[in-house]
């Protein structure tokens, strides 16, 4: 079942996909090493799903080249499909089949049968916490359970690579954490995970990341590398009244680098941002806002992401 030896899990070279005049993916080049969790990040519509669909041979690239486990995504889709697992954001299960029937079906689709199927089912039910609920219809499971069953169906054949397209969309935080624990287990067996997400806290869990924006890669590397490379400056977190207004006011001055809303807080990112403190405070007070506090913090990926994408837009 191993793919071609000495190959990366995924490799793309100048991958392009156009739909009419619209370029969804615009010359993307990256490599995913085997056994790693690779995070593919970007806002909605950036080209994440289009890229993943090309890698699985669901759509044909307009130009460029891509291989999965050393197999060409256009010419050798059959080889690829036997070795990969895929879980979409819709958790595509059969709602009118039971937990057990769903697993049997996907097992059959991958030619997993007999004792192996029995063993795999037992492992997956245990792992997903679905033991004792084998006879329940998938329809009656709530979000977290459905998600874990969908994962189980995607890995029933022990794939080399698991592709996950926004697997935690619409799932509660506790289920998300449990889900990531399962992904670590899977990755611990030496398998590769390719995951798209727009949750930045999830991105921190990945070994390697790439940021995609308007179809182009804007950053590639480990979370630490990306923070180091892309973060020119420090982050000043401001707690003030009416943060929306504060962001607009600070941006209007054009003096303080990147300004972004972070929850109910305002983040200002710039080289030597500490020295701006008095000027920022003055500007905000002038605008009639109440400043409750300011402090320098370690940048999160979200800061990096916003900094790099805003830089891209300019």
């Amino acid at each position, binding site marked *: 079942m191993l793919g071609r030896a000495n190959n990366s899990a995924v490799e793309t070279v100048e991958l392009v996909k156009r739909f009419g005049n619209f370029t969804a993916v615009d010359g993307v080049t990256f490599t995913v090493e085997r056994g790693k969790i690779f995070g593919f990040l970007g806002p909605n519509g950036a080209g994440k799903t289009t890229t993943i669909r090309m890698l699985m041979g669901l759509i044909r690239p307009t130009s460029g080249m891509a291989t999965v486990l050393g197999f060409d995504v256009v010419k050798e889709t059959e080889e690829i499909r036997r070795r990969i697992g895929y879980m*979409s954001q819709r958790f595509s299960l059969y709602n009118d089949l039971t937990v057990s029937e769903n697993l049997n079906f996907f097992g059959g*689709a991958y030619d997993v049968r007999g004792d192996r199927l029995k063993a795999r089912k037992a492992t997956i039910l245990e792992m997903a916490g679905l033991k004792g609920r084998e006879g329940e219809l998938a329809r009656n499971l709530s979000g977290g359970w459905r998600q874990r069953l969908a994962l189980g169906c995607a890995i029933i054949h022990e794939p080399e690579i698991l592709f996950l397209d926004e697997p935690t969309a619409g799932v509660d935080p506790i289920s998300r954490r449990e889900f990531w624990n399962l992904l670590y287990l899977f990755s611990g067996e030496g398998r590769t995970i390719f995951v798209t997400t727009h949750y930045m806290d999830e991105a921190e869990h990945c070994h390697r990341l790439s940021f995609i924006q308007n179809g182009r890669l804007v950053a590639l590397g480990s979370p630490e590398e990306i923070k180091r490379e892309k973060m020119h400056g420090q982050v000043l977190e401001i707690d003030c009244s009416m943060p929306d207004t504060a962001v607009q006011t600070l941006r209007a001055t054009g003096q303080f680098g990147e300004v972004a809303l972070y929850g109910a807080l305002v983040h200002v990112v710039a080289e030597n941002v500490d020295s701006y403190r008095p000027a920022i405070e003055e500007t905000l007070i002038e605008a009639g806002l109440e400043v409750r506090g300011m402090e320098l913090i370690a940048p999160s990926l979200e800061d990096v992401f916003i900094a790099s994408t805003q830089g891209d837009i300019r």
Partner: protein
Amino acid sequence: MLYRMRTLITKEFIQLFRDRLLAPFILLGPLAELLMVAWSTSQGIDHLPTAVLDMDRTGASRGLVVAMENAETFEPYQVKSMDQVTDDIDRGRALAAWVIPAGFQAQMTSATAEPPQLQLIVDGADVAAAQTAAEAGEGLAASYGHAFLVQATNAASGETASLDLSLRVWFNEELKESNFMIPSELGFIAAAISAMVASMVIARERELGTLEQLIVTPVSASQLVIGKSVMAVSLGYTLFLLMLGMVVWLFDVPMRGSLPLLMVLAFFYILVELGWGLMISAVARTQMQALLTCFLVVMIMVIFSGYAFPVDTMPPFMQSIANIFPLKHWLIIFRGILLKGAGVDVFWRELLSILVLGLFIYTGTILLMRRSRLD
């Protein structure tokens, strides 16, 4: 490969039977419809409300009314004028009317006079009732005239006279064959159901996103389609056998030809029409789209194929269009086997047409499916 096919087919049947409404609805709906069509067209029609305008008022005319009551086809009641006859038929209060002329008895018993003229008016808008009334009326007039004459001859001398019935069918001058609808219904529904079910179950996978999930597994699109087709055809063929059994045993529709031949050809025909369903499924994004497109195709098929109106009565241009629908040829074959006891030697041209059309349908289907798979 075989294990994968078995998995795919098993799943379709689990889903079919898990849906408490779908299978019963698909099987019982057409059976109920056929039951109603068969009942209303083939079953004995009796107790038709019948207006009787008796202008003779003699023993002979009253005897005729009693004969009507005894025959049970007619439920006679007396009216006073011709206007009332017209009015009752117009309003649907009467489906038939007898007009007995003055001098009816005198003419019957006289050897020299013209044969007595009776008039039977039937409402041709209701084809089945009209035909039954007309046939029963002719029989009634003949047997009553004969019995009366025998009595009269015994009583008097040896002179004879016959009864002359003039039959008028109103609203629809050409009566159609009353058994026409049953083979149509039976020949067509099973295939339409197979096509519809196949297109809907494929569209359902697409709508729910499971199709994409399946395509990234080693399951090929053709395996998926075959798995679903096996289920759809089993369902349609079961329905066909149930309906055939029902009309032959319950309604005494003649089964004059070879039953094995009919069963083999019906299976072949269902496979051909299934192609339509698969073609639609290659285009439809949702179940609703698939269902509505199927309805559209079925409507057009029904109009052109002699399902409700004989193809021979259509304008020549329309007749040539009718040839591109397999249903048209199939109805000829089906009626041929069922009613006339025909064999392949009689309808080989129709069979060949279905085969050729089937090749066209499946070529189109495969092309459309290829196109819709990538992009």
